[in-house]
């Protein structure tokens, strides 16, 4: 059910600029549907980004992150072809992992 992420990692010098777009409803738990009933909270609570298997960013999120979340970060000491892997977990235990290779910068 979890949709694939869009990840782009481009090299700028020795720093990889990583941009991640996740597809997720990110329900706050305070919104009401057309019948006036509260939509239960459903949001990504944890995102882990690894560079060649080593964790570089461990993020904890609340429901205040926008729908279809965007995350940008920079990884030092990266080389073209390095593996950047992203895993998110939401509050219902749903998970998704996607991996991408760092592309040489222009």
């Amino acid at each position: 059910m979890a949709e694939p992420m869009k990840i782009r990692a481009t090299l700028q010098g020795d720093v990889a600029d990583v941009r991640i777009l996740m597809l997720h409803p990110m329900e706050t738990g305070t919104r009401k549907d057309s019948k006036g009933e509260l939509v239960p909270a459903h949001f990504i609570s944890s995102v882990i980004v690894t560079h060649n298997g080593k964790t570089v960013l461990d993020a904890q999120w609340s429901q205040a992150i926008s729908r279809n979340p965007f995350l940008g970060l920079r990884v030092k000491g990266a080389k073209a072809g390095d593996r950047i892997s992203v895993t998110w977990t939401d509050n219902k235990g749903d998970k998704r992992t996607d991996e991408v290779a760092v592309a040489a910068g222009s």
Partner: protein
Amino acid sequence: MNVLRRSFLKLSAGAGALTAATAAGLVTSGQAWAATWNKSAFESKAVADTLKSLGASNLIDSKDIVITAPDIAENGAVVPIAVTSKIPNTQSISILAEKNPFPLAASFDITSGGEGYVSTRVKMGQTSNVRAIVKADGKFYTAVKEIKITVGGCG
């Protein structure tokens, strides 16, 4: 016929074990999640309580933290915010929207190789100060920027 029935029983028993294993797996992943997610910080409704839950005391105002965000955001549901910390050994960056129902929006732990920079998009209910809290070498630094919201995005 009898043989078929035997094998069917075996198969279903196997499937049953598998389901049980998956259920057990789910339980453990749920527990792991609860351990890392800072529930008290995320569920605090006042900025002071959030700071306490994060363990952030003696905040130092720092010019080395730059919050990149629009001065006026038309749509409160999508407010792009980037935080850059030039403080050496930045360990974590937290983003708070002070007037949101739950102020803490996100907390990023940066480990070896990560640069003191994160960028994301948050929801904001109303015009408010956005505070970045950076932990470096056990000290807490902070910076604030006001973002005006035309249409709130917490509904």
